[in-house]
């Protein structure tokens, strides 16, 4: 175990954590963690889910459940041990000295009270009693976090604001009492990439302006490396590696940190591509360039001018406005856009979950419009979907074996023995042990569940698999495993993928062609390299700019590729 603390100047450190161990009952979850955070500095705790990073944050804020968790060690804030303080002396610190930005903004605000009413609670921490003065201060801080119309936000209820705006409100409420330390627990993981960039930029600015220290908790090494001065890499509750983020990032010393670094999509745009080109060559027996469309290629999916509107608030909102894209057989096409861009609607139209108002959808040369239910059902069999969130897409009362067998049973494929065989085949193909079949989804991890969902989609041997943000609910390291699996399966089975995502870095790794959607319209499309190197539309450029480490990736990638020289 490597324990590295920066003992350079203890008195300048705002927060010092020494030998912190936390146990739930007799189950230890955090072991002997030490780190320190300088005044005005920023530090990121990185790790997968279950690595104990949120538990450490809760210990610092003293939010661990009473009687269930025991924390030993020292957590010093401005030199006084937070863990040893009686509750009465700690309460004045929480909120005033220590701010907290939670992960999910939607569940952190009270839905039945206005933002203003909740902001007054934070304003009361300042000791200000005059409501008019408080109100002025609240409006000022709402303006400071870049909310367009503070007075309207003040009178709004949480459900009237978007996720990005709610997160801004929470940040405003956190910085309002001018704390000296902010603990941010995955502040942007529920948000779109462009919003994520805005929020992170804002946090960095506020930190500089108000001289606030930041303890950032994230599973994304790219965000951590871009936003924090120093990093602490956690695994199974123990420190793997720590140091200045530039050093850790450029030349990770431990195996785990190296694998985390390798899993950042923005740094390795060609990670799967090389493998895919190799496989393509092997399959065809000849060389074929990856980006140039071959003239003989057949269109597996052809969507032409599809329109769909939904009634919302008394008027119709166009979710898809003449969306056109096509996918060649055996290729991967990506639909990219933020939430509300119409990409999910386009997919639902393709799968027949919604009926289009206009336009034409052709699958393998057969038009889906104007067909009987039975015909559409047969077409659906060749189109399978892998949902975004494996925690909701699998029936919790079913065992895995039955979940994977469901499509076979429903489409009446083969005899009973054949079905059982195909289920075990599918589970094997996605890299799951056969004993998983008798377990229920609750006993599987997120990555394993997504593998089950993929097995379910593949078991009927479809031609097209639609992947609706298949990794957005998963950790970065798990994401890499799933993408690896998908690329392998594509070339073993000759699958056509339609990949829906808001993450351009990810799209660059897996897709051949891209359509960028905005407000229901395709603003730009073409081969993936073309979009990345010569984006024409400003929106595409904004999306590209929002990729964490996008700026450094071009300059520093060359340096990163020779870590041996850097450490030598």
């Amino acid at each position, binding site marked *: 175990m490597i324990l590295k603390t920066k003992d350079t100047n203890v008195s300048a450190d705002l927060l010092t954590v020494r030998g912190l161990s936390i146990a739930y009952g007799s189950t230890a979850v955090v072991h002997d963690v030490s780190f320190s955070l300088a005044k005005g500095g920023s530090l990121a705790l990185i790790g997968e889910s279950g690595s104990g990073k949120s538990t450490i944050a809760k210990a610092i804020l003293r939010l661990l459940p009473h009687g269930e968790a025991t924390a030993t060690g020292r957590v010093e804030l401005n030199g006084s041990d937070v863990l040893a303080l009686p509750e009465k002396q700690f309460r004045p610190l929480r909120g005033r000295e220590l701010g907290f930005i939670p992960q999910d903004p939607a569940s952190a605000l009270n839905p039945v009270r206005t933002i203003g009413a909740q902001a007054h609670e934070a304003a009361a921490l300042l000791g200000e009693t005059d409501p008019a003065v408080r109100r002025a201060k609240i409006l000022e801080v709402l303006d400071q976090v870049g909310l367009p119309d503070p007075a309207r936000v003040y009178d709004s209820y949480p459900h009237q604001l978007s996720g990005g705006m709610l997160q801004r409100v929470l940040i405003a409420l956190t910085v309002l009492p001018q704390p000296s330390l902010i603990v941010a627990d995955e502040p942007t993981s529920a948000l779109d990439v462009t919003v994520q960039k805005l929020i992170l930029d804002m946090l960095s600015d506020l930190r500089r302006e108000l001289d606030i220290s930041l303890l950032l908790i994230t599973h994304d090494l790219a965000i951590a490396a871009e936003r924090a001065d120093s990093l602490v890499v956690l695994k199974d509750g*123990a420190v793997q590696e720590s140091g200045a983020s530039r050093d850790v990032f450029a030349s990770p010393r431990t195996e785990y940190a190296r694998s985390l670094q390798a899993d950042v999509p923005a740094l390795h745009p060609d990670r799967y591509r090389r493998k895919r080109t190799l496989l393509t060559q092997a399959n065809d027996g000849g060389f074929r360039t990856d980006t140039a469309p071959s003239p003989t290629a057949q269109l597996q999916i052809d969507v032409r001018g599809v329109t769909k509107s939904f009634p919302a608030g008394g008027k119709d909102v166009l979710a898809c406005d003449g969306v056109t894209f096509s996918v060649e057989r055996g290729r991967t096409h990506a639909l990219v856009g933020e939430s509300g861009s119409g990409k999910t609607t386009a997919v639902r139209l393709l799968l027949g979950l919604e009926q289009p108002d206009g336009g034409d959808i052709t699958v393998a040369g057969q038009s889906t419009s104007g067909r009987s239910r039975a015909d559409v059902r047969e077409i659906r069999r060749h189109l399978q979907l892998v*949902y975004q969130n494996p925690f909701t897409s699998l029936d919790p009362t079913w065992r895995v074996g039955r979940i994977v067998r469901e499509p076979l049973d429903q*489409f009446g494929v083969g005899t009973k023995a054949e079905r059982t065989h195909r289920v075990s085949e599918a589970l094997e193909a996605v890299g799951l042990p056969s004993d998983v079949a008798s377990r229920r989804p609750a006993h599987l991890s997120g990555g394993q569940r997504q593998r089950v969902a993929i097995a379910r989609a593949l078991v009927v041997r479809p031609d097209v698999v639609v992947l609706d943000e298949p990794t957005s609910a998963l950790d970065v390291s798990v994401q890499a495993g799933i993408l690896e699996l998908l690329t392998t399966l594509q070339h073993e089975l000759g699958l056509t993928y339609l990949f829906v995502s808001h993450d351009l870095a990810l799209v660059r790794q897996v897709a051949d062609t891209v359509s960028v959607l905005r407000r229901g319209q395709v603003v730009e499309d073409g081969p993936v390299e073309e979009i990345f190197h010569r984006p024409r539309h400003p929106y595409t450029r904004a999306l590209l700019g929002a990729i964490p480490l996008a700026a450094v990736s071009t300059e520093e990638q060359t340096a990163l590729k020779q870590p041996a020289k850097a450490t030598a």
Partner: protein
Amino acid sequence: MTATLGYPQLRNVGTASKRLTAGLPPITVILSFAVVLLVILWSLVPWLFTSYSPVTGDTASKLAAPSAQHWFGTDYLGRDQFARVVYGTASSVTSALVAVLIGLVIGSLIGLASGFRGGWLDSVLGRFVDVLLAIPGFLLAVVIVSSLGFQTINAAIATGVSAVAVFARLMRAEVMRVRSATYVEASYLEGGNRLHALLGHILPNAYRSVLVLAVLQFGTSILIIASLAFLGYGDPPPASDWGLLVASGKTYVTAPWLVYAPALVIVGTVLSVNRISRWLRKAK
């Protein structure tokens, strides 16, 4: 380094000690199960628990206080009160079961249909349930028994009908919650039809809370049926329904045990059932 070595061992210790207590419910729940088991045995094989007859008594020892011979004392005809309680269990428990079954089956069907189908069916069934809910349950039961005839089984049917609304409401809410789940939509994509989604996915995920309510309703039904029997809406004497025992005992102020004994049995049973229901809801 010691921390890393100690970690797996610590974890094993943790799970081992958990395993010892994890399988067992709290002590009050075990006691409740024991009470319910006793009540069930009373209703199935009452002759194993008492040697006295519930209908013939020894008038010489009438209105005797509780003793080792007569645990609950004797009534005005010298019949052993404990025997009467034990022999009365069958009809009390069966009628409560009938009531719960009627409420569960009819209520669930209504809730399932209105929650899954929605639209006009939901509106029609919803208004029907509203009407049922608008009439106080006990009053509704009294009206139904009056029109069907004074019998314990009719009291059970009446109690069941008055419980239909509660089951329908809960089932509808649960079905609507599950209906929009992603795995139900996934089932359509995998070629499943609506019936398959309903029976395969929605019902298994929705019935749990309804079952917990059924257990709770069992306790309530015992109370309502006892109340109806107390008011004379059940079988006439010499039947010995718990409610009837309380009613006939209340005229003898000098022998309060004639009221207390059956009343305590009712209270004990209902409390046990409620405790089990609450535990089920938590364990769910």
